[in-house]
């Protein structure tokens, strides 16, 4: 699934994947399905962190987060902050996480996504527009459950050595 550490991504692939993730984030869904949208940008950032942290580590997470803020029209910097934090953890524990079996990996991703969502919840609260609707937490387990699918899908994007 993963191809070692020295993966030479072309910037083109990175930009394409990021733009696709952002587009999937704003893709119109039927109203009842809206809360079930997986957290595509966070998954993409985590995947890049685990795969190629030297090239696409924290700075990438920060820029992707800022783009997400601009796209979603929320407070500028909030996703940049939270994604940088989870990218840091992912980079730190990268070698352990990559050695885990898929289910175990999903569990770690779940924890990271919880952290991400909790930080967002916190920032929303400080900024004075907290969303207390319980449905805001749905994407977290859903995205973690999608992790094996995401890795096998994105593996097609990673250049083979």
């Amino acid at each position: 699934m993963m191809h070692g550490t020295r993966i030479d991504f072309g910037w083109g692939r990175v930009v394409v994947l990021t733009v696709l993730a952002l587009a999937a984030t704003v893709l119109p869904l039927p109203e009842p399905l809206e809360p079930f949208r997986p957290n595509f940008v966070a998954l993409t950032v985590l995947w890049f962190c685990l795969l190629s942290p030297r090239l696409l580590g924290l700075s990438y997470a920060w820029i992707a987060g800022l783009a997400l803020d601009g796209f979603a029209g929320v407070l500028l910097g909030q996703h940049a902050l939270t994604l940088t934090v989870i990218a840091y953890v992912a980079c730190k524990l990268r070698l352990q996480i990559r050695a885990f079996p898929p289910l175990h990996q999903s569990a770690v991703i779940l924890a990271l996504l919880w952290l991400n969502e909790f930080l967002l919840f916190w920032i929303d609260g400080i900024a004075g527009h907290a969303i207390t609707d319980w449905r805001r937490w749905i994407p977290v387990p859903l995205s973690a459950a999608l992790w094996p699918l995401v890795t096998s899908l994105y593996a097609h994007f990673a250049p083979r050595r």
Partner: protein
Amino acid sequence: MSSHQSDPRPLLLGGPALGLRLIVLVSMAAGLMVADHRQHRLAAIRDGIATLAYPIQWAVQAPVQAFGAVRESFATRTRVEAENVKLASDNLVLRLKLMRYESLEQENQRLRAVRESSPRVVQRSLVAEILRVDLDPFRQRVLVNKGTRAEVFRGQAVIDAAGIYGQVTRAGPFSAEIILITDPEHAIPVQVNRTGARSIALGTGRAGLLSLPYLPQNADVIVGDLLVSSGLGGVYPPGYPVARVTAVVRDPGQPLLAVEAEPLAGLDRDPEVLLVWFDNAIVEPEPPSETP
């Protein structure tokens, strides 16, 4: 993972470099948030991102729109004919109303002249198309395809054919974000059309539901009352329909009534909305000019 040995760089990432980067990036993000939240100084950055995002947002919703257009073009002839008949009859009714309206408008202007108050009617409007883009499922906001290039400004009122829709919260060069009257952060000053009682209608975050929590127990409100904009606050033109009261709960234990209302504007189904300009009678105080 045998490739690690061939990699001359340190095996374990981290150490001070990674931690330092984290601290720098997190403080940058925190600085951005404070600047954005407190001072609203980041208009240029926002505009930049909005401009970059616009083509992607447009591309995402294009297939959905194209599908709608294709379905429209395959609509059966009978449906189009039925629609045509309905439009013709609607047109007749509206023209009759317009005749009455014109005389009423003249009368209204005369009366207003007597009272020396300004009429504050909508003077100019611009049709904007809603981009089918989901911004945040828990906030009632939409994106439209007109921005500052079309003289759209922050705080501008947005209406549709049936009533008040919302206001512009952010205007980029090519697109603008509109907060709907049902957004939990939105409040609109309203007036009960039947009695003239004024109150404030708050959004609830659910499409199709406004709440009026500030009416006293003895207020004269009944189910079916029309709420119109009162024009207080100066954002919305007065006298435009906002919502219809759907529930009035009189709990004697509570000091205030719990009133629910359903917005009249087609908040979740309009393909197009109107951005309006009107003469605002409330003049903002000029900032004191700096004396040399």
